[in-house]
């Protein structure tokens, strides 16, 4: 099973991942067959030693660098594993508050984007390749004109910016061109929330949640657990609060099933308007709203009052958290309720958003005015006031609300410059396109959601000749090109106002090592404006339309830069398990009303978009009726073969009211009779009377046993001298975020197979996140399912060539190079966790070879594979321990999935050592194994979900 980089590899890139995959396979097949038949000598291989070996970079030893990835402008600390200078994997940075050692799917998939051969490589001018120098010339003249006009026609459009260096540079530009304006476009953000905060705090403020202090959390469509800049931390904190005494409670009101709903003690499906009504009722019961919220009686009233009592009972330890889909009025209400509940400064910290410094006459700085939104920019463009427009890493032509018609405005701009990772829609619509360097390719800095500043450290020189935003802005501001490295260092030299070079170097080194420059100041809370708090609320929502569309961030593809990422595309959505696609999510009743089945294409039209859009529907249990959820981020026309031509673009229907792009719109739905075939990875979500997932009630936690007695076995018990590896997965802590699935994919060189193959049931993920809906139609339960490493493994006895064996540490090992592919082992695996290379799935692009984990075989076509408990990490740890002549310690071996889990739901270790974490976890009464009745004796066991009856809002526990 030699790795083949066949002559056709480069065409593989050109052809791309999905449609072309089959063609690529065709090209690959012959060489694969050759390699298999293994005739004659292997091709002679070269060894290329360093010319001069850098310190501590011996080939074969991984080196980790602390860096930062950006999520909606906010920093998330990561550690990048590099192998002989090639970044191959991303892990969380324990020292960084937004990570605490965990990394979510998006962060980890960034490695694939970094190596993506389809990223933009050259400066483009009007669709023709150009050069950086030509751009500089024309830019010089352009800026000359702008300088004359004091920057009257100069506009800067960027995503949210937290980088101190970038902010300083923007400040400089605004200082140099007083008339120039800076606009921020945040398609994944929530204008309503910003608007509400602006009213209450008089400035841009975002809430920072401290859920470790929370006892009762009410989430209203909030994406608390991400994917977002603070998702990992929220998940981590909330689960800590849950493990504590008293057990923290979560109530989730959701228009569509989200991650909060899965962990909620009570989850209720409501439309955004319904949630606003609930907020009104809570507000009036707490007496914080001018009693205009009339008490509408009904089933709601009962549980809402119960909810109220619970919230006020947890005074100062509760949190009411509204999500993107709610109106700004609802956000106002939430702020009021939280103030009344005394949560501000405890569970919820209003944090001021950093603004570019505006140098004053006396040399000091003052904060510049808050950036304007996209609406103002488009207005100006339509009015022809914009001569020069620089767009930094944004794609408004695609992801701005259809109502704005950004593209038409852009066509009226004399000189439009786009800078981005990909030649996306905006790049094609602009005069200039500048290839941008990936975060892991250029120096920068960033602040995390809580204000902690960290360095963005490049781990490799720009692969495709991208530039850093700092360099371009420096060009604009000063007509000079300093390297991003100098700029960032200069920034911090000023920030630390340090003249002592040595001292600075020391601190800089320290910052690089830890990945954190400056801790967050806890005392930067913004006081709430009492007057605004008392002010009269705007009018409540009118009568609810029959069908309302909610524009939600997709769970995988949050920003345009992630769209060309095959890992994220093929990652099944938590509830629908759809891959490579987005779907209009509707509830069963709504579907029934229109006679729709999964995959039926409907046309959605709104008042001001009569032509509307065509979207295939997917029926989701737990979806609020009368609500159709439209995930954004799909329906791309440019930006890579992986991104293009999938799903539908929901931005078309998005509307704008007084500058705010709305997250919901009234729509009409009409079946078209067409059908779309989705590629989903799980088809049955009922339990069919089985108990793969279990729950124990809170107070029986220590009493009742979740496990069944182990049946007797005819096989003699195995004797183990050394460690006996095992794993536990805590179903009470698992939030179904999919981070482990991607961690596994990155660590183990797992290929993505494309939508056709997924539809045929051939996805390759070793770690499968099952979702079950209790037969009673209750809340959902996630269950990470990978090879269980059975003690009596059914797969082992049926393999005719002994390609899957039990090793002396109890691992069920799969020997790829011995496998002939009878697939009997998969048939005999009751968990169906084995994956088979039906075709030559391995990516043969040179970039794939470069980013592959060199410690894991790249599997050939026709062999079986499965979770190995990261045997390469075990080997590495064992060898290191042996060299130091010490036994393996608990924690020496951390599997990829365990390492990245934000809630520490996964624990791996030596079950033979009674003091190991895993042994202690297995000692819990909640510990059970799946399908124990088959007597497979799995090494992976699960900790049953805890069911807290008292916490529920249901009728029975009334009073």
């Amino acid at each position: 099973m030699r790795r083949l980089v066949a002559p056709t590899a480069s065409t593989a890139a050109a052809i791309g991942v999905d449609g072309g995959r089959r063609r690529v396979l065709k090209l690959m097949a012959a060489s694969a067959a050759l390699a298999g038949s293994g005739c004659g000598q292997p091709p002679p291989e070269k060894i290329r030693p360093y010319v001069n070996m850098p310190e501590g970079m011996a080939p074969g030893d991984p080196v980790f660098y602390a860096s930062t990835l950006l999520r909606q402008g906010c920093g998330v600390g990561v550690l990048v594993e590099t192998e002989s200078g090639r970044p191959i994997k991303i892990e969380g940075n324990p020292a960084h508050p937004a990570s605490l050692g965990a990394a979510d799917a998006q962060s980890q998939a960034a490695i694939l984007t970094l190596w993506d051969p389809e990223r933009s490589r050259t400066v483009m001018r009007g669709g023709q390749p150009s050069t950086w120098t030509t751009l500089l010339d024309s830019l010089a003249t352009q800026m000359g004109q702008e300088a004359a006009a004091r920057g009257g026609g100069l506009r800067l459009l960027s995503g949210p910016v937290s980088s101190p260096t970038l902010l300083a540079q923007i400040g400089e530009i605004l200082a140099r061109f007083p008339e120039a304006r800076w606009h921020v476009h945040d398609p994944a953000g929530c204008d309503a929330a910003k608007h509400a905060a602006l009213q209450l705090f008089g400035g841009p403020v975002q809430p920072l949640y401290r859920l470790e202090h929370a006892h009762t959390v009410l989430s209203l469509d909030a994406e608390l657990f991400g994917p977002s800049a603070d998702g990992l931390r929220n998940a981590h904190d909330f689960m800590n609060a849950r493990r504590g005494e008293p057990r923290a409670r979560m109530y989730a009101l959701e228009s569509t099933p989200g991650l909060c709903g899965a962990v909620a003690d009570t989850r209720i499906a409501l439309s955004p308007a319904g949630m606003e009504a609930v907020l009104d009722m809570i507000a009036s019961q707490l007496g914080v709203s001018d009693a205009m919220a009339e008490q509408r009686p009904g089933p709601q009233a009962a549980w809402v009052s119960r909810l109220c009592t619970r919230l006020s009972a947890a005074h100062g330890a509760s949190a009411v958290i509204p999500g993107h889909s709610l109106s700004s009025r609802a956000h106002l209400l939430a702020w009021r309720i939280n103030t009344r509940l005394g949560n501000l400064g405890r569970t919820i910290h209003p944090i001021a958003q950093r603004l570019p410094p505006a140098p004053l006459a006396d040399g000091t700085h003052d904060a510049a005015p808050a950036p304007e939104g996209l609406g103002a920019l488009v207005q100006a463009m339509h009015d022809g006031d914009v001569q020069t427009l620089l767009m930094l890493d944004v794609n408004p032509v695609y992801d701005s609300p259809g109502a704005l018609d950004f593209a038409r405005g852009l066509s009226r701009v004399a000189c439009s410059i786009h800078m981005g990772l990909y030649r996306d829609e905006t790049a094609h619509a602009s005069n200039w396109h500048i290839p941008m360097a990936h975060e892991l390719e250029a120096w920068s800095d960033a602040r995390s959601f809580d204000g902690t500043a960290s360095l963005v450290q490049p781990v490799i020189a720009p692969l495709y000749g991208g530039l850093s935003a700092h360099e371009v802005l420096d060009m604009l501001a000063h007509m000079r090109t300093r390297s991003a490295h100098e700029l960032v260092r200069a920034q911090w030299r000023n920030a630390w106002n340090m003249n002592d070079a040595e001292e600075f170097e020391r601190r800089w080194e320290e910052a690089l090592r830890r990945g954190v420059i400056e801790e967050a100041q806890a005392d930067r809370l913004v006081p709430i404006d009492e007057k605004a708090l008392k002010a009269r609320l705007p009018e409540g929502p009118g009568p609810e339309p029959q069908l309302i569309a909610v524009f939600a961030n997709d769970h995988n593809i949050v920003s345009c830069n992630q769209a060309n990422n095959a890992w994220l595309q093929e990652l099944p959505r938590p509830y629908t398990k759809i891959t490579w696609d987005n779907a209009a999510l509707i509830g069963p009743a709504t579907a029934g009303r229109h006679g729709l089945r999964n995959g039926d294409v409907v046309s959605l039209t709104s008042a001001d978009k009569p032509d509307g859009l065509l979207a295939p529907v997917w029926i989701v249990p737990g979806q609020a009726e009368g609500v159709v959820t439209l995930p954004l981020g799909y329906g791309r026309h440019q930006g890579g073969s992986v991104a293009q031509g999938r799903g539908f673009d929901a931005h078309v229907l998005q509307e704008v009211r007084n500058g705010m792009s709305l997250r919901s719109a009234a729509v009409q739905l009409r079946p078209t009779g067409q059908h779309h075939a989705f590629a989903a990875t799980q088809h049955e979500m009922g339990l069919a009377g089985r108990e793969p997932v279990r729950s124990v009630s809170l107070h029986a936690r220590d009493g009742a046993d979740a496990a069944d007695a182990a049946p007797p076995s005819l096989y003699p018990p195995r004797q183990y001298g050394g460690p006996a590896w095992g794993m536990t997965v805590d179903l009470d802590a698992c939030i179904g975020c999919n981070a482990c699935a991607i961690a596994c994919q990155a660590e183990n060189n797992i290929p993505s197979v494309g939508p056709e193959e997924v539809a045929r049931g051939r996805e390759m993920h070793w770690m499968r996140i099952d979702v079950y809906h209790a037969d009673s139609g209750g809340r959902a339960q996630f269950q990470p399912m990978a090879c269980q490493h059975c003690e009596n493994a059914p797969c082992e006895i049926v393999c005719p060539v002994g390609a899957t064996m039990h090793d002396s540490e109890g691992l069920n090992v799969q020997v790829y190079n011995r496998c002939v592919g009878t697939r009997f082992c998969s048939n005999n695996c009751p968990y169906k966790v084995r994956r088979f290379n039906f075709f030559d799935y391995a990516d043969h692009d040179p970039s794939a070879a470069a980013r592959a984990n060199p410690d894991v075989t790249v599997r050939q076509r026709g062999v079986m594979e499965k979770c190995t408990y990261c045997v390469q990490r075990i080997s590495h740890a064992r060898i290191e321990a042996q060299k130091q002549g010490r036994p393996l310690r608990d924690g020496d071996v951390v599997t990829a999935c365990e390492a990245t889990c934000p809630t520490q739901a996964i624990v791996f270790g030596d079950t033979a050592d009674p003091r190991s974490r895993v042994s202690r976890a297995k000692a819990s009464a909640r510990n059970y194994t799946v399908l124990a009745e088959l007597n497979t004796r799995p090494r992976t066991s699960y900790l049953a979900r805890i069911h807290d009856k008292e916490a529920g809002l249901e009728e029975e526990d009334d009073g």
Partner: protein
Amino acid sequence: MPQLLERSEVLLVKLILLVPVALLVLTVAGMVWRTTSPVEPGVAVPQPIPFSHKHHVGDDGIDCRYCHTTVETSASAGMPTTGICLSCHSQLFRDAPALAPLHESMQSGKPIAWNRVYDLPDFVFFNHSIHVNKGVACVSCHGRVDRMPVLVRQQAPDMQWCLDCHRDPSGRVVPLDHITAMESFPALSDAQAEQLLQSLRLEDPRRLTDCSTCHR
């Protein structure tokens, strides 16, 4: 009943009857060919620079680790960087035409492309450091390189050869201070051997012959 065939034809018939025999022979030959290593031992591999281990190790007595720097710490033994070569050859034999590629590499910054002599399949994960740290001497796999003007592959890196040692390493290990020595180690008394094994703490052969020891 008349005789069906003449003499000449009888021969022909006999020949025809040989066909199945031939087929059988071919099959056996095929099996044998399939089961012999694609990499035959005793092969000298040409190199961009005619490097002589005999000269460097045998005559000059340079220790293996001087050039193969990471052999004790890392999976790969490490090939000498251009810099290491030049640490001597910036003075010695500077202008020897054979060393031209060396200087060229230093100027251009392009590495020298040596040809691999021991090439394991990609599904085999061999770690030099652990072998060296467990008392497996260089010479036991690479042979007497101090007698090789041109490096010659000692044996085909076949699984059976690896297993041969993994099944019973105890007899083949040497004290760690003798790892890079070329001449074979003097026979140990039982007591010494016992002590040696104690100090090396070798893994149990069961562990050493697990598939997962070399294949991932």
